[in-house]
Every structure is written in structure tokens, then in C-alpha cells.
């Protein structure tokens, strides 16, 4: 394991301190927690937006804290959901009297810990609502199973619910728009190389030199299917096809596209993938409203990428374009 770290068991603490040190005017650390909040929080009268999850997905989630996006992000251990007490601290730190909205990625751990925090907060008299993001079409959706994972599409939920709250939306309105994004966003990922959890010390799985994994999540877990490595065009085609297959994107609405790098993929390669994705969408008559290429939701130093499509209506367009001060999503 080659990493620029001090103690493998202290990476999250060190990172959180390094983040506050980077943006002292914008961020504050809620004392004795792994919660990073807007410096000016709680913003009175505004719905607070809280997200978070395991660490290792940087810039998610603290990079999205800022005016117009998240009010606080809770950092768990690497790939491990934060505990209910931490989430509760975040909720309390950002409650400006109009309630708090949680953006949860659909993992058993995140759902349980955030739900417990919501119960604790309600018990303290804070209104809490939440949405569970499950954009990963690699995983079958079923009410009898864990269901789909939340991956890169989550960033759109952050952006849009954050903008809604900033524009004065009520807790109910924020929840509605959050659910609208979740209903309209789908993603699919792949990987060429695994990653190593610092405290584990060894890679999460092995891949041969000519193999790739299709249907990867963002926790270094193996994918759904192992295949011979393909060209960028073929990869773009496969990922996009899976997404398009799952939701009808051709019904006259525009889409937002995100080509997300998982950590080690050179940006050059993300643009090469984007080239083909855009061609495919053009062929299908789908109009692209806005494209995002970069590292938005990573899995440490995993090599790979994901393709996310979000179907937009006028409300979502306006909110997507609204101002954001978050270091990792300025607009």
C-alpha cells in the first residue's frame, strides 16, 4: 500500500482538519465531530441540507458544502457510514428553524444510521425529511432486496436540493424536488483497477491485466460482471446503454450528463469517454443541457468511471444552474 498518509486509522481526522485549514472562511468543523458545516450555519429560516457517508469519496461530501448546496457533511470512516450521533450533530448544527433535509445514499449502513439520527432529531423537536438516492442501474431494484446503490447521481441531488433550500423552499418542497431528481437520475460505472482501504492495507479485489469490472459501486467492491477490457468507445456504449435502458430519456426533455472519475482515471480518459457518450445521445435524439466531467464521487484511487444521466424539466434546470459556492461545485 502506497499512500500519502500518517496513521491509517487517523486518515479521516487528518483529512477533515486539512479541509477546514483549506477553507477557513467557508467551513467549520463542529467541535468533537467529523462534521463539516458552512461557516455561517445555521442559516436562519433556511432548510438545512445534510449529507455524508463513508469517507474515501472526496470531494464528496464536504467539497459540496457551501452556499447553494450542502449545509453540512458528515464524514464516516473510510467506506463506513457515520454513526447516528454524528449525523445528529450535523442536523443540530444546521437547523435554522425550518427543518433539515438529509440526502442519503442507498446503503444499508447509511440508511440505518441516518434514519436513527432522524429519529433522534425528531425527538429533539427538529423536523427532518430525507431522500434515499439509488441511481446505480448495475444493481437490480426490488423491494425485497437492498435495492440500488447511490453513486455519482447523488451529486445532482445535493446541487438541486441545495439550490431549492437556498431559494427559500420549504422542507416539503425540498423533499419533493429531491425525489424528483432521484426519480430521474441513473448511473452506471466500471473499473479497471481496485482501491485499497488504508486500514485494510490490501486491494479490495484483484483484476488481471486484461480484465475490467462492469457495474462497480464506489466502495471498492467488485463489479457485477468481469469482462475482457474494451475500448473507451465500447465502455461508453455499454454504460450509456444500461442507463438508457432503464429510463426513457427520449421524451422530449433535456438531460444533464456526468462523466465521473473514480479516483485514478486521468481526466483525458474521462473526456474520451464523454466524446462517445455525447455521440450516442445525439444519435438517440437526446438533447444535452449541461455536461460535467471530472471527479465528483470517487472510490479512493480506484481506476474507472461512471456515466450519469439526469432528465431535466425547467425547475431542475434552474436549480442546477443556480449559484453554488461549494469548493467542488462552483457555479
Amino acid at each position, binding site marked *: 500500500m502506497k499512500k500519502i498518509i500518517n496513521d491509517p*486509522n487517523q486518515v479521516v481526522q487528518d483529512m477533515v482538519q486539512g479541509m477546514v485549514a483549506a477553507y477557513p472562511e467557508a467551513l467549520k468543523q463542529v467541535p468533537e465531530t467529523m462534521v463539516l458545516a458552512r461557516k455561517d450555519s445555521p442559516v436562519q429560516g433556511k432548510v438545512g441540507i445534510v449529507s455524508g457517508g*463513508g469517507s474515501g469519496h472526496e470531494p464528496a461530501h464536504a467539497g459540496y458544502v457551501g452556499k447553494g448546496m450542502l449545509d453540512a457533511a458528515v464524514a*464516516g*470512516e*473510510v*467506506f*463506513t*457510514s*457515520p*454513526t*447516528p*450521533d*454524528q449525523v445528529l450533530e450535523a442536523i443540530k448544527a444546521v437547523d435554522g428553524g425550518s427543518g433539515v433535509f438529509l440526502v442519503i445514499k442507498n*446503503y*444499508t*449502513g447509511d440508511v*440505518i*444510521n441516518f434514519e*436513527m439520527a432522524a429519529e433522534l432529531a425528531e425527538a429533539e423537536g427538529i423536523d427532518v425529511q430525507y431522500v434515499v438516492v439509488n441511481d446505480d442501474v*448495475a*444493481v*437490480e431494484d426490488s423491494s*425485497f*432486496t*437492498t435495492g440500488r*446503490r447511490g453513486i455519482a447521481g447523488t451529486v445532482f441531488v445535493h446541487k438541486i436540493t441545495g439550490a431549492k433550500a437556498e431559494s427559500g423552499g420549504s422542507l416539503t418542497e425540498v423533499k419533493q424536488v429531491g425525489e424528483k431528481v432521484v426519480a430521474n437520475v441513473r448511473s452506471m460505472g466500471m473499473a479497471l483497477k481496485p482501491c485499497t*482501504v488504508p*486500514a*485494510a492495507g490490501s486491494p*479490495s*479485489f484483484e483484476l488481471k491485466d486484461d480484465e475490467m469490472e462492469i457495474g462497480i*459501486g464506489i*466502495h*471498492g*467492491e*467488485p463489479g*457485477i460482471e468481469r469482462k475482457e477490457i474494451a475500448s473507451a468507445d465500447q465502455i461508453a456504449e455499454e454504460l450509456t446503454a444500461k442507463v438508457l435502458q432503464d429510463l426513457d430519456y427520449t421524451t422530449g426533455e433535456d438531460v444533464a450528463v456526468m462523466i465521473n472519475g473514480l479516483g485514478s482515471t486521468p481526466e483525458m480518459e474521462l473526456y474520451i469517454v464523454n466524446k462517445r457518450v455525447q455521440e450516442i445521445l445525439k444519435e438517440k435524439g437526446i438533447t444535452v443541457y449541461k455536461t460535467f466531467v471530472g471527479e465528483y464521487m470517487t472510490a479512493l484511487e480506484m481506476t474507472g468511471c461512471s456515466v450519469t444521466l439526469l432528465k431535466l424539466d425547467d425547475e431542475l434546470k434552474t436549480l442546477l444552474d443556480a449559484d453554488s459556492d461549494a469548493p467542488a461545485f462552483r457555479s
Partner: protein
Amino acid sequence: MGLDVQLIVDWMKKTNEKMQENKPYLTTLDQPIGDGDHGINMARGFQEVENKVTKETYETPADVLKDVAMTLMSKVGGASGPLFGTAFLKLSTAVKGAETVSYEAFVNGIEQAVAGVKQRGKAEAGEKTMVDVWYPVSEALTEEQDFTAEVLSETAKQAMENTKDMLATKGRAAYFKDKSQGHIDPGSASSFYLFEALSDVLKERA
């Protein structure tokens, strides 16, 4: 025979010992069908539990169990933290008041724990989760009249091994569908260590 404060504390120390020892193994189990942190999570959590319960003094077993629950809940995270935490919280509530926990009270507590975990995790037996150790253990206990070290550890062990052939529908392993088969569920393995630790301390007492 019943469980007193000291026995619960010993149980937790023994559990921690096993979690530290098997930290790499549990992580290895979590890599093919999870995210490779289960050993790290359990080792971190039970180390905190040991630190906590050896520092405090307690009146009743329920007090120890409550601290165990709260510690796991606030120090582990992930899926396993709140689920183990819930189990201990239910167990604590079930045995509340007693200075020594009778066999019947303990069996009832484990039943409550299983119900709590199932509810929190929305999981049933057979879905390749820790429920698949807790539930068989609970069933086996109701068949017995008193604490039997061997039954406890053997049932847990067998149950853990049975998860190998199961198809996961809950937790991260569910993402792998068929491919989840052939791997022991990590949370079932750590649950086995927990019950084996209880079995060990019961043997030491005997």
C-alpha cells in the same frame, strides 16, 4: 446459573480479543462481497467497548449491555454498528433490573435482539446477514434449559458456515446476487466470534 456483571464484562473482553485477532480475516471476508471494512469496523468497535466497560463500574448486566450498545452505535458506523448496537440495546432492555440474568431472561433477550436487528435491517433469516447466526442461536437456546457453552458455539459456527451457500438479498453482498454464493457473510462470522466468546467465558466459569 446466571450471567452477572463480571461475566458480561469478560464476555466483551473475550469478544474484543477475537475481533482483534480476526480483524484481517473479517476484512478479507468483506472484500469479495462487500467493501472490505468489516474487520476494521468490528476491531474498532469492540476495542472501544473494552475500553468503556473495563473503565466503568456497573450495578447490573443491563447497564453493561447498554454501554456496549451505545458504544457500538457511536463508534462503528456502517451497517454492522447500528445492528450490533440494536441487538445489545434490546438485550439490555430485556434483562433490565436483574443483578444476575437468568437463562430464561437471556433467551428472551436474544429473541428481542433478533427481532430488533430484523426490524432495523429489514432482513429475514436466509438473506445471508448476521440474522442468520443470531436467529439459529436464538432458536437453539430455546431448546435448552440452561447455558450450554458447546451448544452456543457450535450452533453459531454451523450457522455461520451455512451462510456460505446462501444468496444475499440484503446488505452489500446483495449487489453480487449469484456471485455472493460461496462466501461466508462477514457479519455472520463476527457474530459467531461474539457467541464463541460467550461460550468461552461460560466454560471458564464452569
